[in-house]
């Protein structure tokens, strides 16, 4: 390190430290952010097509599992950037399709995931209300 006068060196170290702390704060907010994820099993309209609600579907996220009838909604609190949930569509008691869907959330407070779109594999699965 070029040896600046002691005072300049100290000031440099202190400004660096302050910046690091601020970044650390922002990082904390990201990883600590709590989001509310709402799973909606409703009929939805996207790019001209209509996707009907799924007759029976089971969601498994973290340790919680839910079963949704058409038109049901369930909300789950999730923490952090990276989460994933398992979605299984059932036909009279038998699992016919199961997808693990990665959820990447930034700072959104709440996001609504439309299950029919997920099953249909469309790119944009979040709906806004």
């Amino acid at each position, binding site marked *: 390190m070029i040896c600046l006068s002691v005072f300049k060196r*100290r000031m440099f170290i202190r400004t660096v430290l302050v910046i690091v702390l601020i970044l650390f704060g922002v990082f904390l907010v990201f990883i600590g952010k709590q989001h509310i994820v709402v799973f909606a099993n409703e009929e939805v309209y996207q790019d001209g097509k209509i996707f009907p609600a799924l007759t029976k579907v089971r969601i498994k996220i973290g340790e919680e599992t839910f079963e949704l009838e058409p038109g049901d909604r369930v909300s789950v609190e999730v923490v952090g950037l990276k989460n994933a949930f398992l979605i299984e569509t059932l036909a009279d008691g038998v699992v016919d399709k199961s997808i693990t869907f990665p959820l990447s959330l930034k700072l959104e407070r709440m996001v609504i995931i439309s299950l029919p779109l997920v099953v249909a594999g469309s790119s944009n699965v979040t709906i806004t209300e």
Partner: protein
Amino acid sequence: MSDSNIVLQVCGLCKDFYGNTVLEDINFELKRGEIIGLVGENGAGKSTLMNILFGMPIIRNTGGYGGKIIIEGEEVHFFNPVDAINNGIGMVHQEFFLIPNFTATENILLNREITRYNPLVEVFGDRFQLLDRPAMRRRAEEAIRALGVDINPDTLVSEMPVSYKQFTEIAREIDRTQMKILILDEPTAVLTESEAETLLETLKRLSAKGIGIIFISHRLQEILDICNRIIVLRDGRLIKDIPTSEADVRSIASWMVGREVEESSKDVRKKPKLTEGEVILSVRNLQVDMPGEKVKNVSFDVFKGEIFGIGGLAGQGKLGIPNGIMGLFPSRGTVLLNDKQIKLNDPLSSLQSGLSFISEDRRGVGLLLDESIALNIVFTAMQVQKQFVKKFLGGFIKWRDEEEIYRYARDYIKRLDIRCIGPDQKVIELSGGNQQKVCVARVLTTSPNILFASEPTRGIDIGAKQLVLNVLKEFNENCGTTIIVTSSELLELRSICHRVAIVNEGEIADILPANAPLEDFGLLMLGNVGNRGGSN
């Protein structure tokens, strides 16, 4: 320019406070390894000289000083004591400058602790360095060994005997490697004989190491024992600067106290010496615990109608006598006023038995600064003798008689020529001289049998000085009030008093008539009771 071994040069130094000069054209040199003895009466300018050398803020706040101070050939200006320390001047104060619950090591290395680096320092600054206690202990031991005394570096200062405290403070000064000049302000005043001996040995050892020492003391014998040269200050002027070999106790005393011009006869009190006559006040083995002015054992008699003077150097206990008799400080002994015993330690009973007191601490004890002149003048009379009071309900309610008070105050303002706007002006707005006149008025209102006046003329302008002295003399002549004046200005005492007692180390050295030779007073003040002539 100057040869290498002159460490301190003082040229043409002068200083004045609000117009009256305190130091005038002081020139002297201090060589490396030389010990100078600085001697002078109180108020001769010794402490002002020390304050200048040590860069005390009081000097800068009162307009700085004239002349030059040169250390090792180059002129220096001190902004504050830390500057002086960095330039190599160390000072041992009379009252200890130590932290009681710190160990000797911590005191010696105060604010110069040896520390070890740690990373936190980069973020939080140098003061986060960790103390290296073993290294500090070693360095403290070194400094103490250099003094030739054995103090355990881990003892708390509060548990140390007095002499060890003194040595700790000196150790702190010499631990400063850049220390070239050491100033000691009456260090032996608080030490016993043997402790003083060791101190003098230490000073000799330090001077041998090349440190220049300025040693201030009233014990002339000590000065003669260890100093190479003696400087005598009087009234702010440097009277004598001679090697020790050419001086002895008697000559130093006369230089200290004597006046070149043969003082004119009018100065000395011509009134016949009152040796007979009725004794109004007799004091037997009075002891007074007044901090800094301790009275060990004093006995004297005062005749009725006499002006009795009490002189002596500061700190010897002369102020203790009036404060003790007035009951302001814990005291023991017997005091008879017209053969009636006075209860000590009770200011009210002293006041009621006809004593009154002008305190030496005018602003601290002598005045109610936020109150009006009128109230200040009548306060004691009203409290003690219930004057200026309108009684209601048979004396149960004692009401202040405002008109009477104002009339009386106006009369005294005219009589003592107190320059003010009116009787209800606040005393804090008056000049020193006028404030003292208010004190005098307060005391005269109680028309006392005996009036104690402590340092009546200290810190007031010449005009007011003369007026206060005249009022006291006039009051003594007209009403026959016995006055006991305590003052450190010998000249003034001799001009106003019939007899003057000199107090030294808490006891009365002797009582001399006012017209006794000046040197005798000087020698008494310096505690050389033995070798002097003159009768009681």
